[in-house]
């Protein structure tokens, strides 16, 4: 029995990936609720947003991410596997998002380099002792 995404929620393990329909899948309601409330305040809403609004925004976001993932999958299937470039291609027409993503990716690289340098330093210390 498939529930509509805006209908009643069913609490089941999100690991159950054997859902035939792509429009609905079993997930816990309130997956992002706590974070969403703070986020909505940060973006201009009331300090205490209405729970119905938070639920609706969560549904919209889940639908958005799912659609993006499917589209990226379609693009990536031509190459064989899904990659970050597929998502970047999808948002190419949206400069703010594109810039934010490139910024996130470059920050990730920097953090990786920093961690690597940190490990190398530790090894040097260990060898000199």
């Amino acid at each position, binding site marked *: 029995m498939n529930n509509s995404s805006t209908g009643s929620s069913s609490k089941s393990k999100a690991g159950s990936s054997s859902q035939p329909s792509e429009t609905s899948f079993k997930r816990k309601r309130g997956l992002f609720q706590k974070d969403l409330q703070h986020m909505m305040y940060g*973006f201009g809403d009331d300090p205490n947003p209405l729970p119905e609004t938070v639920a609706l925004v969560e549904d919209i976001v889940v639908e958005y991410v799912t659609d993006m993932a499917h589209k990226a999958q379609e693009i990536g299937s031509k190459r064989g596997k899904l990659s970050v470039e597929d998502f970047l291609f999808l948002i190419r027409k949206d400069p703010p998002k594109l810039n934010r993503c490139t910024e996130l990716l470059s920050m990730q690289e920097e953090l990786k380099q920093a961690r690597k340098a940190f490990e190398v330093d530790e090894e040097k210390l260990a060898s000199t002792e």
Partner: protein
Amino acid sequence: MSRYESFRRPALQKTNMKKLLVSTGSQKIYSPMTIVVCGIAKMFVGELVETARFVMKERKESGPTRPCHSREAYRRLKLEGKVPKRSVTKALSVDGTQAHIW
């Protein structure tokens, strides 16, 4: 200041996002991908809330955002083309070809 904090600090949880991505049927989800999708989703929430507040201003209403404002905001974002439309695999056209809309 607290609003700025609320703008910078929250992020959609990577673990939950990963579960969501996996449930869409993709085989392998790498962690950079999850981070990118979380960033995109957060910005999308921002666009939604901003547009909803704009709608409220137009209608001269105040207070917390109501679902009707969010729905109107979502409709406007769709018109602007910021929301991916589903490819019409379920609704085939008359001659049986599939139409992809973007």
